[in-house]
């Protein structure tokens, strides 16, 4: 890997060196390095581009890193990664994609990730997207995440896109069984004329299932964001969706929360708020000696922390 690729890897996966545990590092459309463990196997798909990740039942405290780096301008790819998480497993999965586009052609990575979470299994999934490069070519990321959670399973998704992605459409769909739960935390910041669209749809099918979707975003310059969140309560369940956006400059943010109760014991809540940074927040930090610009930066950093 060259310097740029290593830097991308650090941005999206926090990797300074080869990680411990299982990993598959994909660079410019090819699997560059791979490691499997006694409990975690990674197998290349034969019918399409992508991998299957098999995590044995009862695997505890192990991690899987599957970062993707694109540094070749003009490369466009769709990759299918399927995760099969065994019963009672407790694992952390770190994905993420970094695009460095130094040319004038569009670079695009569309990752389709499907998770089959077994009974009583616990998964923490971290996904970070980042773009850079001095070229005029667009940097596009359209991740699709499909999650099926079996009885009493737990899935936590942390999704972060802070900088440099020109266009993104992120689709996340989840189906929950009995007593299963999902927590989604999304953080997005857009600038210049970037666009970001997020679409969540959660089906709470199982008795006692629950979902909590939280999105915090900052839109600056002329960027545009759309946040669509649907929670369908099809049994006795609890669901909550929250969207909180800071809007600046000439940006535009649209939030469409939707809750649908198909069962009398479905308890669903939605909250959405869009607004600029409150004047009194800036004033307070300025009385501590910060300039207006420093105060804005602190408020945004804290909001997206």
């Amino acid at each position, binding site marked *: 890997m060259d310097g740029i690729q290593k830097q991308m890897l650090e941005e999206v996966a926090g990797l300074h060196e080869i990680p411990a545990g299982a990993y598959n590092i994909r660079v410019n459309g090819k699997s560059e390095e791979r490691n499997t463990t006694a409990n975690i196997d990674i197998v290349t798909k034969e019918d399409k581009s992508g991998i299957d990740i098999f995590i044995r039942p009862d695997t505890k405290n192990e991690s899987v890193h599957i970062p993707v780096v694109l540094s070749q301008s003009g490369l466009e790819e769709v990759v299918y990664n399927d995760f099969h998480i065994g019963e009672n497993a407790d694992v952390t999965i770190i994905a993420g994609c970094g695009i460095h586009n130094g040319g004038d052609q569009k670079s695009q990575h569309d990752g389709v990730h499907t998770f089959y979470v077994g009974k009583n299994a616990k998964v923490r999934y971290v996904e970070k997207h980042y773009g850079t490069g001095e070229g005029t070519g667009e940097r596009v990321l359209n991740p699709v995440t499909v999650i099926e959670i079996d009885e009493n399973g737990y899935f936590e998704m942390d999704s972060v896109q802070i900088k440099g992605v020109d266009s993104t459409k992120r689709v996340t769909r989840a189906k929950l069984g009995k007593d299963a739960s999902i927590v989604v935390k999304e953080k997005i910041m857009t600038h210049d004329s970037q666009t970001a669209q997020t679409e969540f749809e959660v089906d709470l099918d199982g008795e006692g299932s629950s979902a909590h979707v939280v999105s915090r975003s900052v839109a600056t310059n002329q960027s545009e964001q759309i946040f669509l969140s649907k929670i369908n309560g099809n049994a006795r369940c609890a669901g909550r969706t929250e969207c909180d956006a800071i809007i600046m400059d000439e940006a535009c943010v649209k939030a469409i929360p939707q809750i649908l109760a198909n069962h009398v014991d479905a308890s669903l809540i939605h909250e959405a708020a869009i607004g600029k940074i409150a004047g*009194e927040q800036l004033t307070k*930090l300025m009385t501590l*000696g910060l300039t207006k610009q420093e105060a804005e930066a602190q408020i945004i950093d*804290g909001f997206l922390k």
Partner: protein
Amino acid sequence: MLELKNVSFQVEENGAGKEIIKDVSLTVEEKEMVVITGPNGGGKSTLAKIIAGIEKPISGQILLDGEDITQCGITERANKGISFAFQQPVRFKGLTVKDLISMAAGKQLSAASACEYLVEVGLCAKDYVNREINASLSGGELKRIEIAMILARGTRLSIFDEPEAGIDLWSFKNLIQVFEKMHDEINGSIVIISHQERILNIADRIIVIADGSVRASGKKEEILPELFSTTAGSCKFYKGEE
């Protein structure tokens, strides 16, 4: 160290200018603790905001150690040594108590250092240092954190706008001790806007502001009897008895 000369301020109301502060002149001496009191709506908070640079007077001058700071903005005044504790503290989603105390101190503080300021204001530090300054904190807790920020700044002039508001009686004693300690240990001047007799009692000097003007200024022995012989005298809360 602080001098206001003929300061006036007005707001627009129904298309006409309404004067809130009328030709106010006052001084605060080095290491002096001044308590500004007076009826609600009399202009006390506005005056505090004018000193901190949050509101701009339409006429008059503000001097800090002889330097004219009338045209200085909020940040510049803060950096010249003015601190201001808001009457209604501001909430921040995502920023923690430690973040704000670090900003107040002007440097990244360790959890242990941030805790020292929290202990001073009677908060059990380890429960609070990593809490977000959001709606999960009560008004009284926010108020104490606001005061801890002023302690962390340790500037030459500290202004508190009704620090007792929202603080329960149990912590009120602690609040008085905080001001007494500040007065004794910090090499600076303190201005407190308050209605509370127990705070008025620890003042070196009391200034009474009503209807936008200074009505009286003097030592507590001179001001308090007059203050409580009027309507406030019948109010036990005003005396801090309830």
